[in-house]
């Protein structure tokens, strides 16, 4: 029997094409992506059939945790700092440049204004820890104070009013709340907004289709 010569085939696969594809995909993702903003609490928004998209810029978002704690987030860093200064002035607190710089980087915040200095002095991991602990214990040191009054104890009122004064007409308000939030907590936020004549705002929901 004659020997069959087995031809040795190279196992090298040309990866150039594959590389091309991945680079294209990567470019696509890099260009289309907007990063998920870090939020102090994960909320599951209720679903709705409404298909309106939220405006992209100049949105002040009021985040309501399932236990009623209120957090605020604003999208423009400079506005955020300007509003902090204005709110600080209302309560007779002035912030150093160092503190303002730190505040600039915090996307979402929720501490009473009297604790803000302490909060800003902490490192970022410590800040997160403080928020998480506070949420678990339902402590008073966490969340922007909201109440039924129309005085300075209602700090959410001050924040929103100052934001409105700064941005005038190009400011949209949005409420993002967990589906399981009890209605009284939402009512508190809504009536606070009502108290400063903010009668038009968005409720953030996720999409669902009509079931017939």
């Amino acid at each position, binding site marked *: 029997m004659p020997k069959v010569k087995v031809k040795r085939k190279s196992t090298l696969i040309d990866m150039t094409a594959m590389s091309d594809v991945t680079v294209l995909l990567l470019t696509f993702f890099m260009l289309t992506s*907007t990063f998920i903003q870090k939020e102090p609490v994960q909320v599951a928004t209720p679903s709705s059939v409404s298909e309106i998209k939220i405006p992209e810029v100049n949105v002040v978002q009021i985040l*309501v945790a399932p236990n009623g704690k209120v957090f605020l987030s604003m999208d423009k860093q400079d506005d955020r700092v300007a509003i902090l200064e204005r709110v600080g002035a209302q309560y007779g607190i002035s912030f150093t440049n160092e503190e303002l710089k730190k505040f600039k980087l915090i996307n979402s915040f929720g501490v009473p204004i009297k604790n803000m200095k302490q909060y800003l002095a902490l490192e970022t991991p410590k800040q997160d820890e403080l928020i998480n602990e506070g949420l678990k214990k339902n402590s008073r040191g966490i969340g922007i104070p909201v109440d039924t009054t129309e005085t300075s104890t209602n700090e959410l009122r001050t924040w929103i009013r100052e934001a409105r004064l700064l941005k005038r007409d190009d400011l949209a308000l949005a409420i993002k709340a967990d589906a399981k939030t009890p209605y009284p907590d939402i009512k508190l936020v809504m009536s606070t907004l009502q108290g400063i004549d903010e009668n038009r705002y968005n409720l953030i929901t996720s999409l669902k289709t009509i079931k017939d």
Partner: protein
Amino acid sequence: MAEVQEKDKGGKKKGKQKKMHIHVDFTPMVDMNMLLICFFMLATSMSKPQTMEIVMPAKETKTVVEPTKVADDRAVTVLLDGEDKLYYYEGDPSKTDPDYKDYNTLKETSYDAEGLRAYLIGRNKKVVEELREFKNARDNIQNQTQNLQKQLSSLNEKAVELITKNKKDGIDAALKGKLDTIAIDAYKKGEGSLMDGYKKYVNEIKKSSDESPIIVLKASDFSTYENLINVLDEMQICGISTYAVVNITLQDLFLIENYKTKGAAAQGGAPK
């Protein structure tokens, strides 16, 4: 990682340049790209969140409350209670008292399609039908415009082809780009103003009927945010233009209590 393979044919033909086969191994590159893609896929949010717009009534103390010119038989009060319970009664309690004695004044319903939605669609038949007709017509037109759009773009391509043929020296990229932007611009402008027009028309339809119900939403302290959103959703589905979220009153709570106890609470007399 680049391999340079030299193939030497024993130097039979002298003077000919040696062929260099440069083969770069792209596997690590692909690995790295895959990792990056994974990162971007996980760290990004592709879709913007949906919202629903809500307009709350202005504060009562600040505005003079106009006596509403609403016929009493158009008003429906919806009560949201805990444990996903939903009730409604007809009539406006600020004008005429509902029958507190009879626990059947309050009707229990649900968040399902057969519950509140069926009732409201029944009350708002005219508007709902008009809305449905409008939507069908709109979809029809949109399909037609899309077809036209396709035809237009193919015509556009043909035009570019012709031009390039005439020019013979390759595609005039600038011209092609310009033609494309014009087409896209025209399309976008058309659609944008179209959407606004549609929205206005929908609102007109919603307001046209003078029989469609006017809803007063009252949420008790036991209800959740989800309940509220669900009911607001029903308003949108049923094409109701006039509704308001107001505070729940003691009378309403009494009605719920009375319904739950099947009239036992009414023995003590109506609440004041």
